[in-house]
């Protein structure tokens, strides 16, 4: 069901409308909320939301011969930062607000805050919460979960999605105004699925993530199928002390030699750094130790001392690098 949850007049065109798509059996106890497009350039998530809506529409249609049965409610909020999506930007230039730093939002605030409020209001009583996001600007991420709790339910979510990596974040003043944190405050088991690169739509990646989404619905019993049972894989949790950023000393163009998700050996080459003017090779950043490459620089221009990769390592590092 497509439901308009917010309509805001716009000065020179049609009103701005925020939609929610929900699918539910006649009776249900649980709700999974899926939020995508908190930034206008998180295209993989926006595309995945569309695919899931299409799948659930077919599965729940009257006279459907789909073998799937929906047992609980799923509500999907695609393209939440619709102003930015339409402007082709990450955040909406008019108010300059990062939607994922605007929660719990406000009915009286700027547009972005009103949109955030609508999302918050429709999701804070969910049973499960899931946000689809891309890597931070300039990076490409291997698919992984980001969560604020290392609980049984977060593990179930990550395992259901087929994610082997979960990064546990500590809370901070900025994180407290993120949707994930707001859900945590309401004790909603939730995570952010980070994958790919902002501004790009990677179809192969989305195919695999979509299979993960369906598997999650099966694992949680939200969806059932006569033959298919959800599969639960292993999830490795990493805290902030297990994150090793690899920085370059020089600026220039970074040309990666490995892809996100690679299991790196100590001393393995991450890429090359070349000067912009003459193309001289100035640095070959390497993995300082064994670990999983969760993020790699995708935008080639780098400043000196910027990280070009983030490794997740098994042992606990004693000091944070700051």
């Amino acid at each position: 069901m497509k439901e308009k949850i917010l309509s805001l007049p716009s000065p020179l065109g049609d009103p701005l409308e925020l939609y929610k798509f929900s699918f539910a059996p006649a009776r249900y106890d649980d709700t999974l909320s899926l939020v995508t497009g908190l930034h206008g350039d998180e295209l993989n998530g926006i595309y995945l939301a569309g695919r899931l809506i299409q799948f659930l529409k077919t599965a729940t249609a009257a006279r459907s011969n789909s073998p799937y049965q929906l047992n609980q409610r799923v509500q999907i909020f695609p393209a939440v930062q619709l102003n930015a999506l339409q402007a082709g930007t990450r955040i909406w230039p008019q108010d300059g607000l990062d939607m994922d730093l605007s929660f719990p939002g406000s009915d009286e605030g700027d547009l972005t805050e009103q949109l955030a409020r609508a999302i918050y209001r429709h999701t804070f009583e969910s049973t499960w919460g899931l946000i689809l996001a891309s890597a931070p600007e300039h990076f490409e991420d291997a698919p992984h979960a980001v969560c604020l709790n290392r609980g049984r339910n977060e593990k179930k979510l990550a395992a259901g999605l087929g994610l082997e990596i979960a990064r546990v974040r500590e809370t901070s003043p900025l994180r407290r105004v993120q949707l994930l944190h707001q859900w945590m405050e309401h004790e909603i088991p939730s995570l952010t699925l980070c994958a790919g690169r902002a501004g790009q739509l990677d179809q192969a990646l989305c195919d695999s993530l979509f299979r993960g989404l369906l598997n999650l619905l099966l694992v949680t019993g939200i969806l059932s199928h006569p033959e298919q049972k959800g599969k639960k894989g292993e999830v490795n949790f990493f805290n902030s002390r297990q994150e090793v950023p690899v920085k370059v000393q020089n600026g220039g163009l970074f040309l990666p030699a490995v892809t996100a998700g690679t299991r790196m050996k100590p001393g393995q080459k991450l890429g090359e750094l070349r000067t912009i003017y003459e193309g001289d090779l100035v640095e070959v950043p390497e993995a300082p130790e064994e670990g999983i490459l969760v993020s790699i620089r995708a935008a080639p221009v780098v400043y000196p001392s910027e990280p070009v990769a983030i490794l997740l390592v098994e042992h606990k590092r004693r000091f944070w690098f700051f």
Partner: protein
Amino acid sequence: MTPQTVVTYQTPLGGSIKIVKQTFGPQNRKPVRRISFVAGLHGNEIEGIYLCHLLIAHLKRLQQTRPDAFRGQVNVYPAVNPQAIGSGSRLWPFFSVDMNRLLGDGTEPSLPAEVSHAFFRDVASSSDLAVDFHASNMHLLELPQIRIVEGLEGRLVPMARHCNVDVIWIHPLGRVFETTLGYNLNQKKIPTLVIETGICLRIHPEFCEQIFNGILNLLHHEGILDLPDLAYPVRSPLLALPFQVALCAARTTGLFVKRARLGTQVKEGEAIGDIVDPRAGDTVETVTAPGSGLLFTLREHPLVHPGAPVARLVLNESPAP
């Protein structure tokens, strides 16, 4: 005057970007106290950068004509986010981050975070007092004012009263304030005033001169400069507690055209401005004052959506609880 580079970083093309500080102080004795002035955390807020110019020019002259006037040390950081200033943007370009949201704990590792932390360490280690200059965002024009987070007023209001501003606004702690320069310096027991004036990307010389006179007065009262012949009459600011500030927001969409003037007293029900629908030629809303008081914030950017702030007033009478 001693110019000093506080932080340097290289660009990908090999050039360098520097955060510079100018220091003035007594010549042959230890300074009694040290104060720092910071501008340009947000690159499009030019009013503060201009204020630092006025201050540096004045202190340079004073050092030549009356070096004995310096009892304490004055550090001026006139342009702390050079790349953002150079591109006229609020955010640090390329990294798209707000330099005033990178302080405190829990920031992600990045070049801007490292640079900001290095800058912060320098300010914190060379200040007993500080002033952080800001202008408003793209949308609102602000009367010269000092904003103080609730809980710090006991310590900061006496200092703020010297600054010749129109309003001292005590407001509750917003959630992201914890990452700002002002909050973090105050946490380190360095009393820090956040001055807000004008609007971004413009200079209002009359506001800047008003604050500049206030700053000289502050320097004199804090014993940093000995300026016995200071003859400026300093205005006594209106002290606004959280519940005494009323915000008027647009209820419709269109172009806001102001009728009232910033800095004037408006009466309850008086029209502050109109919102017009430019396609239909209609006035769709008249924004009126919710109470009587001083209009200290007024919208400049005409485009409004429902919820967009249009004006703020310090109410003459507090609303009934």
